[in-house]
């Protein structure tokens, strides 16, 4: 099936090269005209031009015209990152009748002009090299045809918070079947717990409850509450999902009359109320819960192991809905798209001993406050302090608890806490105008529509804002009042303020179980731990894995409005895929040469997707292209050159290495970067204008697992000073675990170098995420020192050791 297909490919190779100025983004530090002139001298290049904006309509039209007029059969554009505009130019080529796999890009912006802003000569030389590499690869490009995969027109939404609810409703209204999986007994998530929303002060549950009930009644939505996703297999359009539905022990006949709960003798803190109110072992978390069916908490119930000791609820239930025999079931779903809306956790402030949370009863979190001020909460909407149930006269809010701190909690800003506090302070003022309110903050971030107005209103109402967080809270043992001690950083003076109650404005953090979802769906996460989108600007709701989308706080902390916006966006993106009904898979699958295959089966062992099987009878391998992720680690593993990867063939990569090492190889670093993390990290270094030495030449592979030892050997045999192999952090691999093969291969290579008396420092391995531009830049700095140390002799030695690698591929 995956035998090499030689598509019709006219004999002479005619390459057109376009060097983009990108305004001054590139032309500012690279002499584009000179690069274009240089490109014209390269083999097979029949035309080389420089222009201001190649991605503009005129730029694209020019390429189309040239393809026809000059009979170009390969196109190279030297401009920004292929991660940005490769799809654009591929389309241009296709429009002009050229197979899109005959297009190649040289990244002279993110990885050249932006990182060598002050060295025009070096940047220009590097740009020339990058163009040379691209031209060398382009000459070997082969047209390819993409296979089509049908898409199942059903969707799975994981998480039933406001984001999951919105996404499910939008998809269901479009006409698709949706499975909504929620871990808790009821959907509603965080929004259901909040009293009012900012900046409009709408009652949160009042605007959410209708949506929740829509989900419950929608003919296209199947709600699986009290359930968890336990397994996901498959690929875009064809996911096989296993959902574990835990028993409720109450059948759907339940009318939510509540008679059972009244007679239940067991009392436990209600998680929904942050533990401030009680519930029974048989309960519903809150009045508006969907599904409204009650649930029995078996960890609390007196009936264990099938022995019915207490049958009060059974007797009280007129509908006979209680069934202690219920068993967990595993439901298998087949869906085409998945929306991840698992939300966020709140920070637990007991990690900060100076605030005394968990020790002083009158120190509460903002989530506890929401339940206290809510009419449906334990105090019926009366703000009371837990120590004596009295209404506090003086209240303090402390901001950034667990956010924006490198010592305690998380580095990032949690986005919602500033406005939440302002809203909360106004709520207090509304009910008890005499209350003194202090807000201790670092910065107030009131950036959204209507936010600044609310902030001004709070100040007008007399809320006192003090810059500088308290260093410590001390409790008065008798009165349980609290002393806040700290520095007012605006007035440069110390304060010591006595209040009745302190509310810690806690930040948001990634769900503890997001690791499970990450593993099941092969997603990547940022340093902060939230899920990473395919592109921060242009594909902000897509996961890098096809067919998966993000909504709500799973992607980053955000308020309700942003969550809903993102959920609708995710639903639209999933809808586009499903409406088409099919998707093409990039033609970067393996190519096998049956005549060389010895049926050793090594490739089948390294494939993360089990897409290669060994047919023992026929002594050959079989490739399931639709299941292939396209990492190319099989091609790197094959010891007989019987496998290679479409569009990243051995010949193409070796040609790139040869192009880099043609001149001044002893000063250069050959870097292999995986498309998703390392290459993106290098791009990020460029976007952030981090400057690093210009002697590195990056070769992009889809995964670091594609880097075969023979590539490294070739680089050293051609006299390269150093080689860098860079990929995603172990565990974060875009191709499940392919980078563990990278690690193994590099470690083995180090051993080989040592055995042959070579300095193993010359081969470096780097794990870097797409957000760690700094890490990439500093690695290049570090390697520069290694390059400078490498002697002529050492280079010659390596050349000799790896001599064999110079032979054909």
């Amino acid at each position, binding site marked *: 099936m995956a035998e090499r297909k030689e598509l019709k490919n006219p004999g002479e190779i005619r390459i057109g090269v376009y060097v983009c100025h990108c305004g001054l983004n590139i032309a500012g530090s690279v002499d584009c005209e000179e690069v274009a002139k240089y490109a014209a001298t390269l083999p097979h290049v029949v035309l080389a031009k420089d222009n201001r904006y190649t991605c503009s309509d005129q730029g694209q039209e020019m390429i189309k015209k040239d393809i026809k007029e000059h009979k170009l059969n390969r196109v190279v554009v030297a401009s920004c990152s292929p991660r940005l505009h490769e799809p654009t130019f591929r389309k241009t080529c296709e429009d002009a009748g050229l197979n899109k796999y005959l297009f190649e890009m040289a990244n002279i912006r993110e990885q050249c002009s932006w990182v060598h802003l002050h060295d025009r000569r070096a940047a220009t030389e590097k740009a020339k090299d990058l163009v040379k590499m691209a031209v060398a690869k382009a000459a070997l490009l082969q047209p390819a045809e993409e296979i089509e995969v049908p898409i199942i027109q059903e969707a799975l939404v994981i998480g039933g918070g406001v984001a999951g609810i919105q996404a499910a409703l939008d998809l269901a209204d479009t006409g698709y079947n949706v499975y909504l999986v929620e871990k*808790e007994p009821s959907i509603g998530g*965080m929004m259901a*717990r909040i009293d009012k929303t900012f900046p409009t002060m709408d009652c949160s549950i009042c605007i959410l409850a209708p949506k929740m009930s829509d989900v419950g009644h929608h003919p296209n939505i199947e709600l699986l509450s009290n359930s968890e996703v336990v397994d996901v297999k498959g690929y875009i359009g064809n996911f096989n999902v296993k959902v574990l539905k835990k028993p409720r022990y109450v059948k759907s006949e339940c009318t939510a009359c509540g008679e059972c709960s009244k007679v239940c*003798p*067991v*009392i436990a*803190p*209600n*998680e929904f*109320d*942050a*533990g*401030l*109110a*009680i519930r029974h072992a048989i309960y519903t978390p809150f009045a508006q819960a969907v599904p409204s069916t009650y649930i029995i908490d078996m960890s609390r119930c*007196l*009936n*264990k192991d099938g*022995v019915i*000791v*207490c*049958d*009060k609820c059974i007797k009280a239930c007129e509908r006979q809905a209680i069934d202690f025999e219920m068993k967990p079931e595993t439901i298998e779903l087949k869906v085409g798209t998945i929306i991840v809306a698992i939300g966020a*956790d*709140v920070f*637990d402030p*007991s990690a900060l001993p100076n605030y005394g949370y*968990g020790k002083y*009863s009158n120190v509460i*979190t903002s*989530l506890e406050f929401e339940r206290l001020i809510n009419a449906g909460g*334990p*105090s019926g909407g009366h703000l*009371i302090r*837990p120590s004596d*149930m009295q209404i506090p006269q003086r209240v303090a809010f402390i901001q950034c608890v667990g956010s924006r701190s490198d010592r305690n909690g998380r580095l990032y800003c949690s986005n919602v806490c500033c406005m939440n506090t302002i809203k909360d302070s106004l709520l207090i003022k509304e009910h008890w105008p005499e209350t003194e309110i202090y807000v201790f903050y670092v910065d107030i971030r009131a950036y959204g529509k209507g936010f600044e107005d609310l902030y001004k209103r709070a100040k007008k109402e007399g809320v006192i804002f003090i810059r500088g967080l308290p260093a410590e809270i001390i409790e008065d043992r008798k009165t349980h009042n609290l002393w806040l001690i700290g520095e007012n950083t605006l007035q440069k003076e110390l304060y010591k303020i006595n209040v009745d109650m302190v509310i810690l404005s806690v930040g948001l953090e990634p769900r*503890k179980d997001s690791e499970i979802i990450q593993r099941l769906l092969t997603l990547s996460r940022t340093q902060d731990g939230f899920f990473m989108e395919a592109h921060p600007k242009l594909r902000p709701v897509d996961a890098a894995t096809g067919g998966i989308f993000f909504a709500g706080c799973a992607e980053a902390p955000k308020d309700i409005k942003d969550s809903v916006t993102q959920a609708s966006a995710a639903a639209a993106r999933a809808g586009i895929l499903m409406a088409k009904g099919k998707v093409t898979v990039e033609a970067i699958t393996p190519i096998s040469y049956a005549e060389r295959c010895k049926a050793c089966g090594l490739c089948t062992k390294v494939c993360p997707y089990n897409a290669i099987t060994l047919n023992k009878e026929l002594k050959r391998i079989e490739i399931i292209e639709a299941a292939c992720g396209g990492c190319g680690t099989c091609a790197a593993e094959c010891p007989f050159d019987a496998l290679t990867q479409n569009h990243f063939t051995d010949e193409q990569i070796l040609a790139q290495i040869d192009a880099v090492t043609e001149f001044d190889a002893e000063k250069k670093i050959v870097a292999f970067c995986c498309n998703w993390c390392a290459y993106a990290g290098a791009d990020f270094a460029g976007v952030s204008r981090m400057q690093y030495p210009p002697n590195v030449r990056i070769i992009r592979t889809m995964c670091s697992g594609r880097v075969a030892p023979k590539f490294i050997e070739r680089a050293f045999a051609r006299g390269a000073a150093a080689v860098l192999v860079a990929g995603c952090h172990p565990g974060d691999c875009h191709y499940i675990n392919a980078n563990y093969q990278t690690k193994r291969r590099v470690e083995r290579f180090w051993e080989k170098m040592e055995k042959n008396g070579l300095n193993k420092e010359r081969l470096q391995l780097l794990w870097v995420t797409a957000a760690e531009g700094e890490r990439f830049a500093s690695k290049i700095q570090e390697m520069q020192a290694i390059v400078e140390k490498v002697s002529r002799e050492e280079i010659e030695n390596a050349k000799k050791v790896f001599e064999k690698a110079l032979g054909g591929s």
Partner: protein
Amino acid sequence: MPVRLWRAPLDTQKVKPPKAEIHILKDQCKGCGFCIHFCPKKVLEESEEINARGVHPPKIVDESKCILCSFCTSVCPDFAIFVVEKQCKEGCQT
């Protein structure tokens, strides 16, 4: 939302679980120990005393913990234990 629950709920007072009055007919007990073993709240334990049948009948450890499930009555082979709800006219203290 795995929030750590460390406080006693604020509305515990609102719920008044029924108070139990446990009656043990000591001399009817044959000491099988079912009531002690099956009590979900561990209200009973074996006493030191010896009854008319020459066995140790159960004794009450903490009556306030009893939640009136009456499972002890159900499992007792000798009808030697029963529980009734305490009728407190002047309001039950604990």
